[in-house]
């Protein structure tokens, strides 16, 4: 039992090896089975999060925790330490689910690229899942970093090899951006290790939890007098880590890799990219930036919130100018992830709840939207919004599911997108920062823009008269429907009964808030 989480993480890797060993035509079946198996296995972890056992201790109380020393050289202690709490567990479930659906979405692999065999694709696909799961589960910063890098490479190849016409450009852009972030993370990671060594006057630690729970380390990290080079330690680390993560989210102005990557990536990869990889950045905020550096976070809250608001509004405006269907959905991701940043920035329970919920909601709705785009791209072989029209008449089942998916993305009440948005908006208004209320007002205007670009897109693609060139397009087939249905159901379930989603994470969010509270109170006074 104690290895169950490690099994979960490395099971896809075993799958990858198997894919390589087995005949090419079996690759997709093996991937399907493995991703589904991993999904089932992850569902087996629900127990402690449902019955409340997970919330008994303070911050850092982990479930399915496993730790062994890994590298122990020259006073340098790196551990293999994994575990789950309310921040990471929902994301693990999201990852296994979306990866499984994406594997299913890759079923028609041979249709979209005949030049390359399926083995490499599916092996990299499974390797990617290991990287993601490992990143979410890692509690040792060095391990976190390694998984972060493990995830980067498969993604690079999946876009760069199996992508669209400008795949090299997109892949390199993605790679260099993320790598730039990784470098910052690496520097921060080492600085934190040595500072933690100073704090305890003994061997340092990479423990993401120890950084928070060890009073000496936590105090030193947030002290005014601790420095890194000539900067104050806390803000310097916070900024470096924040940049590393915000590239992934992505946050303005480091967002331009995302539309390119999405447009070029094959559909299943877009699903994973939007549904999971962006969430790694957000998870980084919650796991690393905020609990470890609450002092710096409260000092810099204004700038973080400002970036969030820019993301929301700027992303939405960019959506209005799009003619490429996939690029529009990509920009809408940027806009929606702005709520996550804003929710984190205000450092209240409500804000964190809203941000986490938005992470999960977007993790459901954006893969759905990308898959919906993919379905139509498979048939029409173009994504020009102005050339579409009348598809709801042509493909009624697909049209209905598309309406649902895009309305979930729009933030319609009763669907998942609404809860995160409204929590963040109301929470921002309630946050005791003096600048919070104007920000809430500006970002609330995002709801109008979101409605505008989504409805306009729906009109251009699904409504209107039937067009000759799309006559006889088959409706969504059984496989496509089967992929869309789980996401549709989850979108409805999370929208109608958000309590059950909140219950999976509120326990931990409360603990995180307890850590941040003393620091934010100071900021609120000013």
């Amino acid at each position, binding site marked *: 039992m104690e290895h169950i989480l490690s099994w979960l993480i490395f099971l896809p890797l075993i799958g990858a090896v198997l894919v390589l060993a087995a005949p090419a035509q079996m690759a997709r079946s093996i991937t399907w089975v493995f991703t589904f198996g991993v999904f089932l296995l992850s569902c087996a972890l629900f127990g402690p999060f449902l019955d409340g056992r997970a919330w008994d201790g303070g911050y850092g109380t982990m479930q399915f925790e496993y730790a062994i020393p890994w590298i122990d050289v020259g006073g340098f202690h790196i551990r293999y330490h994994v575990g789950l709490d309310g921040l990471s567990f929902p994301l693990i479930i999201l990852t296994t689910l979306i990866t499984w659906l994406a594997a299913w979405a890759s079923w028609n692999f041979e249709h979209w690229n005949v030049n390359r065999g399926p083995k*490499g694709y599916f092996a990299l696909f499974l390797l990617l899942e290991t990287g993601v799961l490992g990143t979410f589960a890692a509690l040792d910063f060095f391990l976190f970093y390694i998984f972060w890098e493990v995830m980067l490479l498969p993604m690079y190849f999946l876009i760069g*090899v199996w992508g669209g016409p400008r795949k090299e450009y997109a892949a390199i852009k993605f790679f260099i951006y993320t790598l730039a972030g990784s470098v910052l993370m690496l520097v921060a990671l080492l600085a934190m290790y040595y500072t933690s060594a100073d704090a305890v006057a003994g061997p340092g630690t990479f423990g993401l939890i120890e950084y928070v729970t060890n009073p000496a380390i936590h105090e030193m990290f947030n002290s005014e007098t601790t420095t890194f080079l000539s900067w104050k330690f806390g803000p310097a680390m916070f900024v470096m880590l924040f940049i590393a993560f915000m590239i992934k989210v992505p946050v303005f102005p480091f967002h331009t890799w995302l539309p390119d990557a999405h447009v070029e990536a094959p559909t299943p990869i877009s699903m994973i990219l939007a549904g999971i990889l962006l969430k790694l950045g957000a998870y980084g905020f919650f796991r690393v930036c905020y609990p470890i550096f609450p002092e710096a976070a409260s000092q810099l809250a204004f700038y973080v919130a400002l970036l969030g608001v820019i993301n929301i509004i700027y992303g939405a405006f960019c959506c209005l*100018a799009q003619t490429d269907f996939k690029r529009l959905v990509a920009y809408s991701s940027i806009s929606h992830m702005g709520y996550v940043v804003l929710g984190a920035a205000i450092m209240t329970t409500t804000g964190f709840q809203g941000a986490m919920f938005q992470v999960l909601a977007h993790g459901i709705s954006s893969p759905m939207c990308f898959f919906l785009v993919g379905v139509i791209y498979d048939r029409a072989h173009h994504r020009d919004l102005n050339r579409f029209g009348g598809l709801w*008449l042509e493909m009624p089942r697909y049209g209905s599911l598309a309406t649902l998916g895009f309305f979930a993305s729009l933030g319609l*009440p009763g669907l998942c997108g609404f809860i995160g948005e409204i929590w963040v*908006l109301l929470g921002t*208004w309630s946050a005791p920062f003096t600048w919070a209320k104007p920000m809430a007002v500006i970002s609330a205007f995002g709801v109008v823009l979101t409605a505008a670009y989504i409805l306009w897109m729906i009109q251009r693609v699904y409504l209107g008269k039937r067009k000759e060139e799309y006559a006889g397009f088959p409706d969504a087939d059984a496989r496509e429907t089967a992929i869309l249905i789980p996401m549709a159901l989850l979108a409805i379930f999370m929208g109608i009964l958000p309590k059950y989603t*909140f219950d999976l994470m509120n326990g931990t969010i409360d603990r995180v808030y307890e850590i941040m509270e003393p620091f934010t109170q100071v900021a609120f006074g000013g």
Partner: protein
Amino acid sequence: MEYTTALALGVLIPLISFTLLAFTGHKLGKPRSSYVALLAIGISCALSTYVLLGWLGKTPDEREALAAQAVANQFHWADFGNLAIKVGVKLDSLTVIMYFMVTFIAFWIHFFSIGYMEGHSDEVDGVSKYHRFFTYLSLFCFSMLGLVISSSLLFLFIFWELVGLCSYLLIGFYFDRKYASDAGMKAFITNRVGDFGFIIGLAMVVLFLGTFDLDEAARAFAHQFNTGTGIFEASVNLFGWHVSGGTLATLMGIGLFCGAIGKSAQFPLHVWLPDAMAGPTPVSALIHAATMVAAGVYLVARVFRLLTPEAQFFIACIGCITLTITALIAIVQTDIKKVLAYSTLSQLGYMIFGMGVGAWVAALFHLMTHAFFKAMLFLGSGQVIEGCHHEQDIRKMGGLRKKMPVTCWTFFIGVLAIAGFGIPGMHLGLGGYFSKDEILAVAYERAFNLPALKETDAAADDAGEHAHAIGRRRITSDRSKPASNIALASGVEAAHAPADAHHGDHRTGTLEKVGIAARLPALPPIMFWLPIIIAYVTPFYMMRCWWLTFCGKPRDHHVHDHAHESWKMFLPLAVLAIGTFYCSFATFRPLIHDAAAAATNSPAIVAIDGEAHNLEEAGAGAMLMLNHAPGKNPHDWLAYGVGFAWLIGMGFAAALYRNGLAAAERLRRRFALIHTALDQKLYFDHLYDGVLVAGTRTLGVVCYWFDKIFIDGTVNGVAMLTRWIGSFSGRQLDMPVQRGDWGLVDAVANGMAATVLDIGSQIRRPQSGRIRTYVCITAGAAAVALLAVLYFDQLAAGIDWLVTRTSTLAQG
């Protein structure tokens, strides 16, 4: 069955129907899918009747106990921070009667639709959308009923958006037509602009009142008002504008009201409703006349206790502007549905105006009566349109009276009702007569009596006695409220105080009125005169519409020859006509009246309403009459002054159009400028399209260009620089660069692409050829990672070395 259960069940059954139809509707086809929806709303209607009848038999105390029980039965939906959000049924007389009205009208409109949609759903390339119509209708019924019973503002907002969705789907029902999908989009986005304000208002409620629950919020608001705490001592800096205290409270009210501006299509967001007529006619009747658009009024009624006098004044202004301009535009409309749409707007303006001046009961009463006669009018217009082969231009109709007599006369009843038909002195009339008159009466008091009252207020400024007097009367009527609220009661109690008290303790009544008057801004007289004038305009344009359609000589023989009535659709018309009579007299008003006490109970609000309508209630049987001492009340001259407005307005219309369009045409040429302005809907659409929509889209393009040129340009520029530096030692690659879409960026992009290829080729070199190589490398990397887990000391040493180097750098 408990009432809350019955009501909740009535909400859920249409949802079940929706789910069923969504999945099996296309298989059920025509007409079976409509039966499912009809059955569902039928059950809801039966349940609501059960609740209504039961509720009527309850004493006030029993009702209060049931309401308290409903509060106790709320369930925990989610946590907002540390605030538990409860969901439950708001059980009071208003809920019961509103719920009944919605289910009743919805049922008959479903019934009508079965016949109507047969000819109106198969127009799209042979694909039947018949089942879709009923699927959406069921979803609408669910959402609308949910909105009515919500006890929490958050849930009100949720259902609020859902009815907006249904409206969007149904307006754009014929979505193959561009104008229909445009209209749906316009409706949804315009509503979202209003919801933007609603969200801000909601945020203020949550922050300052600390709850989503309507009742709790009202209590908190009353408490804060009295103690000057909470929102009344808070200060907010909004973009450099420091808002504090009462202004903040007013802003909260206005924010919430913004939602109503959108949904009830008030100025300046009224532009979507006329376009919404692109939807099928039953939809116009149900959603865009009777129920959904009235939800805005319902919202204001529900949050009435959170409104400051200033916020109410704002609401009254908006209502007044809306009712005036839309009535004027209605005069020149030639599309039968557009006339009705603008008349709906104008009547909604009356309701909102009524709410604003404090005529809570009258405004809701007007909502109810309007729902019946306007639904009937729309269904009648549906008959006409159906009969005339989709001709909607009243200039081409005429003389249809003989061809469609039932439609003609039910339509005429509707015209009479909206015109305010009644006979002053005889105490007889249709719904519009009583409800509109009542609103005007309250407006009169606010405009003319208040200043006088204010003058005497100083003399009567004995706060202790005032509070004592009110407190005494509150205790008898409202025991459930906390003691702290007792002394703060407003004059509303005049509305529900026992009749003998009303006649008896006259002095107390005066005192109350004076005390409240001091807090009220007086209404400018123009806000009394405009609604009065429009009361004359309404009968004119409605009669014009009826006359042009049904009377005179046929103007287009093609249309006239085809005209026929469909007997299938009679029943709903007849039932709604009876409803129009019935709701004018019985059940509705007393129940609204009953709800008023609790629903308007806030110290910050106005309560002249109570004074005004109590006078009219003689309780003779089920009849409502204007019954007060002659010469003492504005109602007298008001009743005579406005009482014959219907006759004058309708008479003028009949006179003008008795010989067809010629006389009107002369008039049109005479006032060409005004006519053009009205015909162009006062240029609101031009303004919004030209400035707001175009501006937003331009901003979108600008943002995207910024993205491509500035941000990506910087990125690519840096990359180019790197490559340029690198090229001193490297070789030039030939670059098969795709032609970019963005001329200016091309140069930069090419540079970047070169770099990309450069780096790409470096990376790809070991992987030339087959994909297997990629995978081997990756698998190798993974193997390294795995080996590393197994104490890979050499790697560790390497890392150690790296770390030491870095840390010296970091520490030095």
